[in-house]
Every structure is written in C-alpha cells, then in structure tokens.
C-alpha cells in the first residue's frame, strides 16, 4: 500500500503533465436549451472560460433545463452545476429552496466601476439567479409567401381572413393568453391586470378560439423556424433569436413582427447541492461580466442583461450585420412590448395551464 502511493502519484502527475491540465482542473455540468442558443453560450462563455481557467464544461441540452432540477434535488442526487432557466422557474425554485442563493455583490462591476447591482437591468438579479439575456416571444412570417400586404401588428396574427394560412403557437398558456389579449386591443400595461379576472381569461380564450382550427402547436424552440421553412405555417410565434439565426444566419426570407412581443429573462442558477458549487459560481461570475454578455450578442439576437454591455454589442459573426437593431430591447422594437410577469405566472400557472390543456383537448 505505502509502496503504491508514490507510484500512483507519479503516474497521476505524469498524466496531468501530458494532458496539459492544471492540477486542480475540475469539470462543471451546464444545462441549457440547445440549438443556436447553447451554441452562442459555448462560443461566448464556455470556450473563453475553459481557455482561461483550464477547467472543463460539459454542456447538456434539455427542452427545459429547469425540469431536471427538482427531480435531482428531491432525490439528493444532483449532477447539474449550472442551469439556464426562465424567470418564473428561477423565482419559483428559489422560493421552494431548490437553488443555492447567489449574492449579487460578488459579481464583477462594469468597466467604469458601476457595481453589478446597478449595472444589471431592473429585475435581472434575484436571490438565487443572475440573468444573462433578455429574450422575447415574437411572431414571424415568411416574406416570400406574402404577395400583397404583409402582417404588421399582433392583431394580424389572429386575422386569418386577411392573412389566410396556418399559425404556429407554443403549446402552453404562456404567452398565448397575453398575445391574444393584446391582439384584441388590450394595451400591454393592462394585460396582466385583465388576466387576473375571469372575464379577462375568457376574453383571451375567445380570441384564441378564432384561430384554434388553424393552429399547429410547437413545443421546442427549434420547431417554429422549421415549420416556417417547410411552409407548414404562414406565421408562427417564436423566440426572436431563433428567427434571427434562420433569417440572417441561413438567409431565410423570414421577418419578425415586434409589435406585441413578450419579453423575458434567461437566468443562470445553481441547484442546491450542486457537486461543484464554487466552480459554478466562478463560471457565472465570468459569464455575466460586461464583455461576455456583449460577446454573446455576436452569436444570437438576445439582448444583454447588463446596461454596460449595450454599447459593446457589435457585429454579428458574419462581420457585416450590426446586432443592435435586432435586440428585443432596441428602442424601435419596444413600441408595444409586454414584460412577462413572473408573479402572475407563479400563482396561476397550474390553473391556467389546466384550462389551456382542457381547451386544447376539446374539439
């Protein structure tokens, strides 16, 4: 036994030298949404962090990265170190004690010295989560399929008379109910107030009824651009970054209608009991600094959650498309925009989804 030790140590040291990994190299598991989005994170966050620190990142895709967290924490067998989740999940899981808390004071300040707590957009920092991007649900269409007038407002999404053809919508209550009300003429500021009343919910479903038979439902973010490309739908709601990637990255004739967009954050969280909690924190600190957030916008059209990153947003990776006008937060796009109300959904998620599922299942 004692004789074995030096040999084993030497072998280990030789192995490390050969592989060029620092002696304290670790590996963290980061779960995200897959597709173009994960790719942008790998380019902007993972690769520079691995190069800088020598640690490794195992990137895992999930249809909703929040879903495995509860199961893992409850089972006491956590393998995820960092997950990229939606706002409502970040808040709900934090309240339920499924996440480690993250002190915003440890986050790096902006280059001009503004502390992180003031540099992040309001609401982007919560007790357990640090936002990286602002994304939005918009609707988009294939411009080559419209010969005359093209859709301009959220109301056009629900207008199958003027704009015939199938519609792609996300299979879930959020954000269809919000969009239905906005299409019905409700101002963005009053949408959530109206949805807390029975009459408001009924009005939203009534509006959805008008296009129900024309809807193709999608679940994963990669589906809507595919549905558009296949000509299965005339227009579809989608995450704006996915449409951008198809339009600019793959030269598809897709156009986004920003009217009636629903904005949301994506945030980094650490599940309670994560195996490499300290490394995970280091990664989050690195990934959400000013430069890194601005870098991500190079690969996908989601807005950085830090104000100081806005100025650094440059060109798309093709080297010629300026990214700023494609950000959901660009001023021209914010004319009629709704910010997702996570408190509302934390309360009504189960009721409204049950109603939505009942509505969708009835013919």
């Amino acid at each position, binding site marked *: 036994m004692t004789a074995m030790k030096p040999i084993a140590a030497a072998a280990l040291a030789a192995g490390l030298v050969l592989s060029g990994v620092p002696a304290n190299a670790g590996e963290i598991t980061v779960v995200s949404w897959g597709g173009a989005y994960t790719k942008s994170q790998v380019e902007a966050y993972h690769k520079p962090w691995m190069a800088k620190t020598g640690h490794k990142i195992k990137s895992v895709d999930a*249809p*909703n990265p929040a*879903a495995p967290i*509860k199961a893992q924490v409850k089972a006491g067998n956590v393998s995820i170190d960092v997950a990229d989740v939606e706002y409502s999940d970040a808040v*709900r899981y934090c*309240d*339920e*004690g499924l996440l480690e808390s993250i002190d915003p004071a440890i986050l790096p300040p902006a280059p001009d010295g503004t502390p992180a707590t003031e540099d992040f957009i309001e609401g982007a920092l919560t007790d357990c989560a640090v936002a990286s991007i602002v994304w939005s649900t918009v609707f988009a269409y294939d411009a080559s399929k419209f010969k005359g007038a093209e859709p301009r407002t959220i109301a056009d999404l629900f207008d199958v008379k003027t704009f015939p053809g*199938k519609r792609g919508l996300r*299979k*879930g209550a959020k954000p269809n109910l919000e969009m239905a009300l906005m299409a019905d003429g409700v101002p963005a500021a009053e949408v959530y107030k109206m949805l807390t009343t029975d009459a408001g919910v009924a009005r939203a*479903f009534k509006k959805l009824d008008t296009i129900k038979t024309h*809807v*193709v*439902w999608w*679940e994963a973010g990669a589906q809507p651009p595919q549905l558009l490309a*296949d*000509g*299965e739908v005339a227009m579809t709601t989608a995450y704006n970054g996915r449409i951008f990637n198809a339009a600019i990255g793959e030269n598809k004739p897709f156009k986004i209608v920003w009217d009636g967009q629903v904005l949301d954050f994506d945030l980094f969280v650490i599940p309670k009991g994560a195996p490499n909690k300290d490394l995970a924190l280091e990664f989050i600190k690195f990934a959400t600094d000013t430069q890194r957030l601005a870098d991500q916008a190079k690969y996908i059209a989601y807005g950085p959650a830090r104000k100081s990153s806005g100025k650094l947003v440059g060109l798309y990776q093709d080297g010629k498309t300026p990214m700023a006008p494609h950000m959901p937060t660009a001023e021209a796009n914010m004319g009629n925009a709704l910010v997702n109300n996570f*408190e509302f959904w*934390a*309360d*009504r*998620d*189960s*009721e409204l*989804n*049950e*109603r939505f*599922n*009942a*509505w*969708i*299942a*009835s*013919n």
Partner: protein
Amino acid sequence: MTAAAALTTGDGTPLKTALARATRRARLKALFLVAPLLLFVIVTFAVPIGQMLYLSVYNPVFSDNMPRLSAWLRVHDVAQVPGEDAFEALVLDLTEARANRTHAQVGTRINYERTGATSLFKSTARKIKRIKGPPYKDQLLALNEEWGELHLWTVMARAASPHTAAFYAQALDLSYDAEGEIVRAPENRRIYGHLFLRTLFLSALIAGLCLLLGYPAAHLLASLPLRYSNMLMVLVLLPFWTSLLVRTTSWITLLQSQGVLNDMLVSIGILGDDGRLQLMYNQWGTVIAMTHIMLPFMILPLYSVMKTVPKDYVRAARSLGAGPVTAFLRVYLPQTVPGIGAGVLLVFIISVGYYITPALVGGSSGQLISNQIAFHMLQSLNWGLAAALGALLLGGVILLYWLYDRLVGVDNMKLG
C-alpha cells in the same frame, strides 16, 4: 417389524428427509439463479413504481412545514373560518416556514387546490414580521383578507393530513367546493376523463388497424417457403430496429400538408393547392404513425402461431366441401386466436401508455393521457397528480387484462 419405516439412503438417513433436502437444495439453486433478475426487477421496477404511486396519496409538505396549524386542523372541524387560536398557529408556523424558506412550497401545495395560494403565502410570509403579538386574526386579515375565506381553510384542513385524495379527485375531473363537498370540476377545467376515453378509443382503433394489416402479412410470411419468408421478415424487422424518432419524423415529412404525399396529390391534380389534406398534427397523425410503429408487435406473435398451424387442416376442410370462406372462418381463424389475442393485447397495452409519437404528431386532437402525465412530471411538477393519473391508467389496463382473461383466457395467449 414394519419394513416401510426402514427405507433409508446409504448413510442411514430416512429417504423422505433426504428427498426433501435434495428438492430444497434444487429450489434454492433455482432461486439463486434468478436472484439477480429478481433483485433487478425489485430495485429498478417495483420499488420506484411503488414510490411513485404512493406520491398520489401522500403529500406531507403542509403537515411537515406547518406543524402547529396542522395539529389544530386535525382536531377541529372547519365549518367556518376559525378563530384566534388557529390564526395564532398559522402566524407562528408561517414565521418559522419563512425562516426555513419552505413557505413557498406550502403555498404551492395549497395552490394545487386553490389558485392564488402561492402568492398569498409568499406575500404574507414576506410581511409576517409586521405582525406584533396577539391577537393575530385581525392583523392577518388586515394584511390580506383572503385569509378570511372559508374555501382556503377547508383546503388547508384537508392538506393537514399527509394522506390526501385530492390528486385522485383532480384526475377524475372532480373538485371540492367551499364546504369541502366533492363536486364536478367546472366545465372549462374538465380534461382527464375525456382524455382517458380518447386514449382507450384510439388504442383500440390502432390495435384493430394493426390486426387488419398484420393478419394477411403474417399469413403470407408463414406460408411462403423459408428462403422468401426470411427475406420478407427483414422488412418487418428493419423498421422495428429503426429508432422510433426517425420513424416518427419520417411520417411528418411524408404526411405534413407541404409533405411528399400532399405534393404528389396536388401535382397529379387530385387535390387543389388550397385543398391539401391535414394528415399530421391531429388524430390522424397519431393513428397513422402509431399503427406503423406497432405493426411488428402484431405480426410477430401472429406469425409464430400461424407457423404451427398445419396446412393440411385447411386442405382437409376444402376437400370435405367447405368453401374458402368457411374453411378460413371455421378452421384456420380459430387456430390463430392465441396469436390474435397476444398481438391485440400487446399493441393495445403499449399504445395506452405511448407518449413520444402523439407528442410529436398529435397536434391537439391526437394527444393521449400519457402526454398529460408527462406534462405534470416535467413541466408543472405536480407529481401527485401525475402519479394519480398514472395509477388510474395502470388500474384501467389491469382491469382490461382481467376482462380479457375472463372472456378469452390468458392461457390461450401465445407470444411465440
């Protein structure tokens, strides 16, 4: 002297004892051989499923985190909004839950049965420090008057016991009214009964279609010479070995409204460009894709039974004057019943719990109950409800199996 008692083995042990010992040893050896499988099945199948099913009736979140109020609620009858002592327990428990960060879990548990409870618990816990000493009731009602509603208290009274029937009630489209009586859920929230029926109907339809398509195919396979039938068998097995997702997405490519089939029908002029058939993202999509995926489960047991049916019987029937229809119906068909039983039951039971294909091609009208179970497992995280739905589905299948046993007889079934 009785000779019978004297029968012994060579070393003098009575024969009976020696025999018993030998058979016991053989039995132990057999048990030892199956032990790995048995253990595997228990650890990976019986225990997790049992635990999951237990979740449908057991939810201790409220009773664990609100101990004082739960104790109070268990001994008192809640016919109206209770008085000061219950509110005192509520405030003390909430203060403690806030410190342990469990108040939101408690709110979520109540929210399953009463919308708005999550934010009620959260906002009250946030402001709980403002409450200064007794009397508590008026201060709490001043914070949020929802605490004075009877329905909330009857929900909490039921949650005070860790064992609950609430998830089964919900899975059967029932709910509790303010007085705690079971009533039908409001019409716009009834969903599961309808879905259970649709699941059974579509599964039966798929099993029927598989039988219709699979029976002649299996007969052809069984009656051809071996070298041809082996070649054809590959055509049955190849899709069987291909990934499920590949097969499902190929159906999407073929059948979607801009897909191969529609394009072909439009180009030869059978359909107009605006009259394309909607074969995907609805019930048709589910039925077509699943029938294809299930077909091998029907053909293989049918084939193995048909292989054992001697050809001479039908020939004998024909030579004795039976027409082809009579010979088939009275002689051939009855001998293949074990295969039909096995195939239909296999396809039906697999279809009842099928999930990926309907999720991909079912749109809204082709969704099955399993999609709702997955929704509650993965999205809403209401595991109690998912477990209750799963238990009902399992119970339904066992019931149908029992019926099948009574009507046809399970011994009669042959899987190959």
